[in-house]
């Protein structure tokens, strides 16, 4: 048995002249939480749809859970939460969930048992009210999201694919989602999710892949990726209103390539050939009071900005979230 949950090799998908995914290769280890990062239009959803055999790649191979991805019955082992969410509005919640479970091959009786369990767990079924008996459009948006999440997991999939799972979630549901992801991982499941929220990815993911314009920019374990980009980032904190005094130093392009200015806290990326010691000396020379000067591992957000660049940001990247 392969120890990869997802093995994508040289996958290409073209649409009408433009290349949505170009020669993409990805390896997601079993039992890991994997983040697919990239600006809007980078090819994340296209990649996910190819994984699910909703669309067919022009070339390349995809292997899921050790099996070629077009194998009959394989999708029954995958849970999918699409970015665009929705359920049959006029249908009873229980019946929708039962339908989704049965589509994945769960027998009706077993589905009913699991639905009860999940409804209670996500507080859609309380002693006062069983929302499972209501129609979907009687539920609030947050409750509908919960119901959809239940639908994704009812068949206890080995591989869970979440497309932008955090978008549009209220903080309580976002927390519940995070807990569930952690719990799934603890039970040996593989979770891959796409997001453009770097903070979430950095906290949750074992490994990440950043894609832009349909191409892989980098991938690997979060720790390794950050380490590989270390030595170039400096965290600098100063006391008082020192902005004017240190501005010339930070503006020296031979020393500092980029500044992320957080008012009294700066994240600096050293220029190629720039020396951290020289930078420290120059800052001291300005006479400001330094409270922190540290060579740090860059955040995913920083790495993302560095590797995808401002262009990616303009194309819909929303950075911190």
């Amino acid at each position: 048995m392969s120890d990869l949950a997802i093995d994508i090799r040289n996958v290409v998908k073209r649409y009408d002249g433009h290349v949505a995914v170009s020669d993409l290769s990805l390896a997601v280890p079993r039992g890991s939480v994997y983040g697919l990062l990239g600006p809007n239009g980078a090819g994340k959803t296209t990649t996910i749809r190819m994984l699910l055999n909703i669309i067919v790649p022009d070339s390349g191979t995809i292997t899921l859970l050790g099996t070629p991805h077009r194998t009959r019955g394989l999708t029954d082992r995958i849970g999918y939460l699409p970015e665009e969410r929705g359920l049959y509005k006029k249908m009873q919640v229980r019946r929708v969930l039962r339908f989704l479970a049965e589509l994945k091959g769960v027998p009706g009786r077993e589905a009913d048992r699991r639905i009860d369990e999940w409804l209670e767990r996500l507080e859609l079924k309380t002693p006062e009210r069983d929302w499972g008996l209501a129609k979907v459009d009687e539920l609030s948006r947050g409750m509908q999201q919960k119901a959809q999440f239940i639908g994704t997991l009812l068949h206890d999939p080995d591989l869970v694919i979440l497309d932008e799972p955090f978008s549009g979630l209220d903080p309580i549901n976002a927390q519940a989602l995070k807990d569930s992801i952690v719990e799934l991982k603890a039970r040996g499941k593989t979770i891959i999710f796409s997001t453009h929220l770097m903070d979430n990815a950095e906290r949750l993911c074992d490994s990440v892949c950043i894609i832009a314009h349909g191409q892989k920019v980098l991938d690997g374990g979060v720790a390794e990726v950050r380490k590989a980009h270390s030595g170039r980032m400096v965290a600098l904190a100063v006391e008082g209103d020192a902005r004017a005094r240190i501005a010339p130093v930070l503006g020296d392009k031979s020393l500092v390539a980029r500044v992320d200015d957080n008012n009294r806290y700066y994240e600096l990326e050293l220029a190629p050939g720039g020396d951290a010691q020289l930078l420290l000396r120059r800052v001291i020379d300005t006479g400001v009071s330094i409270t922190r000067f540290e060579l740090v591992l860059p955040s995913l957000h920083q790495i993302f900005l560095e590797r995808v660049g401002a262009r990616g940001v303009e194309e819909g990247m929303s950075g911190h979230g």
Partner: protein
Amino acid sequence: MGKLLVVFKREYLERVRSKWYIIGTLLGPAFLLLILAIPRLFGDEAQGSRDVARIDVIDASGTGLGNRVADALRAKYPLSRGPYVRTVDAAKASVEADRSVLRVQREEVLGALLLDSATVAGDSVRYVGRNAGSHMDVDAIRNVVRNVVLADQMARAGIDAKQVDAFSHIRLDIHTQKIGDKGVEKGNPLAVMLLGYGVALLLYMMIVVYGQAIMRSVLEEKSTRVAEVVVSSVDTDTLLAGKILGVGLVAVTQVLAWVVLGAAALMYFPQIMGNGNHPAGVPDSSAAANAIAGAQGGASAAATLVKTGLPSVPLGATIALLLCFVLGFIFYASLFAAVGAMVNSQEDVQQAATPVMLLLVSSALFMPPVLANPTSNLAKTMSMLPTSAPIIMPLRMTLVPVPWIEVVGALAGVSSACAAAIWLSGRIYRVGLLMYGKKPTIRELAKWVREAR
């Protein structure tokens, strides 16, 4: 197969459980009965308007024909005011006619009947009037005049006046029976016609109603984005097939319920049909003859239909009929599904469905001419054309015997049209289901079809 069943089950159960479906299924027969009963409630289905005799009779014949015609009209329409007879010179006839036109315009009379020497000779009579467009009224007047002229001529030939009266009141009903491949068929032809019309109308209605239901169902999955989840579990071909089969069975269920309920209603309340004097059951020919003799129109024929049992429709024809419905439904349903997958909103969908609706409505438009003359070339052509065959062939088949080679040919044609529609729609559906944004142009659609895999 398992997934097909899951999709099928959902489509079927969700629909059959819905409140409106249940109401429609229960009230369908009641509505039908109401439509059948309305002409009887007004009681004038066969007589035409009661005011037929409120006319000017301009007698330029110089034989007193006018007064005799007027008497006959009065006898036939005792409640009507008039007629008003003016006996005039042949030369003045046109002036008098103009006067009557004015009277008609002032609503003093309904029309004017011009009797002249040609009328006496039995050649022609003129009628002008508001109701000149009503076949029933015009026929009634013509018959009255004809009988009077006939009586006059017989009297001139020396036949006794009493006998003349008796002769001119001969009532001759025609009792017809259809001859099929197995000889004389049970059931009366009026009932056969009604059955044919009913079957064709029902097929048409079911395709329109449930074809569009499929279209809306596809659109719903698309616009609520449920499609995203569903197609990650089941391939689009299975989804489409399950949908069409599920909704198709909903339609069949409804028709069956209507047939059972309708038959029960006619069985237990035959007086609704105004023909309750025969005991129900006993499908013998004398009952049929009695029933049809007393029948006044389609409504009673419907009662007769039930009393005498269905006109014999052989098993082969029943199967062909069923195939017509199934294939026709699949053909139109898959086209409707493609339309649903093409668009994104309720506003766009009606417009996008227009070509499919036109195909359907144009088939229905040919129902009356085919009904009137089921052996015509038009009927043959329309019953063979794949787009109209599902509706016209059953109609033709119930009316007249159709050579089996034609039935098989039509079914083969519809089958291939079906295969083409499924192929085309399957591709549009696959791509369209996850395609949001504006409505595709024809060129974009062609690209979807080419590129779908």
